[in-house]
């Protein structure tokens, strides 16, 4: 029923070149009391999505520290995933009419998975709402259970949250990506940031020739200013607002706009948003709307590296890791002050925050007219990511959590 994933080894020392040998040595020192102790990570998908992407890197790195860690994926049928998708949207605040049948399906799959998953590690980390109900038969005090919530719970649908809260309250602690997302709970709640991997295809250094090739492929002129937003075609990412901001900037600066995201072909809502974007672009040759196949990580990397200014004009955001990706590449970023973005963009220090189309345009104009400030923000943004949003920092945070739980705090 469930599946334990076997992952390829990632030598931790590869990160020493980027971060310094002392950082890696200190990770080993922190991990020493946890050597040989068991951790089980559980989520509901092995591929696709940010959680699987992070676990794919985090689990092998923890193994490098001699921790006995495994990643299990809970199984569900189509009916289960339909229910949990509705739960997911409802927890984000979307309207939802709960039916008793939905809760029955959720509980039935939780019970089936409990029968097949080991759930006996010293530390069990459950990711997101789908496997939350696995805690139901937890023997009291036997091991430590952690609930990691990757979604924005600031305005959840009451019925769904009330149902899930009964389970969440039985965990030893809950982890959220922003204080705004936390709830009133009887258990400790900690801040845990998502992370990027500096060695992954999306973030590794690129040969400038490859970057030029990518620009050539999409007829983007490297000699002119490039404004870029990388996001799926989703209204919450406000691509139409980005085009409006670009038009204001264009009155003062010659520039091109790149809007790049995953293909919208299998996403009806995405396809509709893409149409709206193309309508707003109105065949402007300086607006490049790019549908990238399966997110093409190397191309995303190249487009971010080629940008003069990176934009993330979301109306709502979980964490917005594309911001960290751009900052890691030392890019000046103008982004909306929503969700986890203000954690990454410390206004006037690691980027500029905006609250409207006009504000976004103004901040872009400011950066284009003050390139020395843009460079400084990009450099400080890089340092901020290095200190706080890399996969190695995430590993360090997990070690600290497990040590804290083990000592009974």
């Amino acid at each position, binding site marked *: 029923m469930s599946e334990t994933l076997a992952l390829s080894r990632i030598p931790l020392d590869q990160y020493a070149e980027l971060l*310094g040998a*002392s950082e890696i*040595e200190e990770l080993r*020192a922190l991990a020493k009391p946890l050597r040989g102790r068991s951790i089980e990570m559980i989520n509901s998908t092995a591929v696709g999505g940010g959680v699987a992407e992070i676990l794919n890197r985090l689990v092998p790195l923890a193994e490098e520290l001699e921790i006995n860690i495994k990643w299990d994926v809970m199984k569900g049928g189509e009916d289960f995933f339909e229910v949990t998708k509705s739960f997911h949207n409802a927890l984000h605040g979307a309207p939802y009419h709960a039916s008793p049948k939905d809760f029955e399906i959720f509980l039935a799959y939780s019970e089936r998975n409990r029968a097949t998953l080991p759930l006996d590690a010293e530390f069990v980390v459950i990711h997101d709402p789908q496997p939350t109900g696995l805690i139901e038969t937890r023997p009291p005090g036997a091991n430590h259970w952690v609930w990691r919530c990757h979604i924005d719970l600031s305005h959840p649908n009451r019925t769904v949250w009330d149902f899930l809260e009964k389970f969440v309250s039985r965990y030893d602690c809950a982890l959220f990506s922003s204080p*705004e997302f*936390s709830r009133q709970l009887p258990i400790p709640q900690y801040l845990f940031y998502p992370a990027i991997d500096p060695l992954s295809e999306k973030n590794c250094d690129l040969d400038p020739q490859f970057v030029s090739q990518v620009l050539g492929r999409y007829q983007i002129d490297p000699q002119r200013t490039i404004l870029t937003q990388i996001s799926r075609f989703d209204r919450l990412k406000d691509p139409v607002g980005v085009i409006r901001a670009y038009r204001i900037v264009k009155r003062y600066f010659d520039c091109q706009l790149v809007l790049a995201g995953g293909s919208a072909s299998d996403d009806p809502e995405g396809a509709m948003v893409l149409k709206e974007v193309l309508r707003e672009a109105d065949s402007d040759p300086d607006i490049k709307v790019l549908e990238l196949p399966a997110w093409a990580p190397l191309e995303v990397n190249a487009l971010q590296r080629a940008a003069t200014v990176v934009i993330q004009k979301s109306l709502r955001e979980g964490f917005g890791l594309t911001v960290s990706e751009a900052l890691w590449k030392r890019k000046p970023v103008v982004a909306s002050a929503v969700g986890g973005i203000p954690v990454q963009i410390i*206004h006037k*220090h690691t980027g500029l925050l905006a609250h409207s189309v006009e504000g976004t345009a103004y901040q872009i104009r400011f950066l284009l007219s003050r390139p020395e400030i843009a460079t400084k923000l990009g450099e*400080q943004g890089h340092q901020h990511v290095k200190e*706080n949003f890399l996969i190695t920092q995430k590993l360090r945070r997990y070690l600290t959590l497990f040590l804290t739980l083990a000592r009974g705090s």
Partner: protein
Amino acid sequence: MNAAETPFEFVTVSYLTRIGNQSAGTLAELLTGLEHCSDASIFHHTFQTLGSHHFLTDGFSNDFAQWALSDTNRNDLAEQLAALDIRDYVSIAALRSDLCRVVGEYCAAYPNFASQSALERFYFCESVEVTAPLGRNARTLDEFREGIEHLSHSGFYFHFISSRLRLQLRTNDFSHWLADGLGLKSLAQSVDHIDIYTNTLDSARAKLLRLIDREGRKA
């Protein structure tokens, strides 16, 4: 070479951020939060934030000042909050008292601003600290230099910044050991004068190593 009886033991630190139950949407609410939040919360938003944002050397001092600036647009209050130097404090109680005084006086002087809604809320968080020995120690100045050179930012922060509260002295671990362990009082004082607000952890370390090298050349 002069050797200390008690070795300097190098340690690293790691923090979890615990989300508190309080938040503030106005300056008046910030004042209430400051009065009632835990000591771990005051530590988190002043001492710990300085370590995690050490690379910002042009005006970032603590989370309260940054929020006053970016979310309430009160530059004058932000300046006063940023001017509170954690080196002047050996207890969280004293630091809290001054934070409350600055915000309280501002709210009293400008009651309209005190109740004005901020762009984003301020969330009070707490630091939960875990330390780990690095298994390295130093008895001589050379060993000490080598140990400092091989510390990560976290380790350096622990000994150089957060140690002030632990020691309950107006100094840091490095200066304390240089003076007490090796009797190098003048070097200890110079090290303690390195400005932690205008330096990054890297540039502070580089200055410290230069001071040690200069001392070594004297011997």
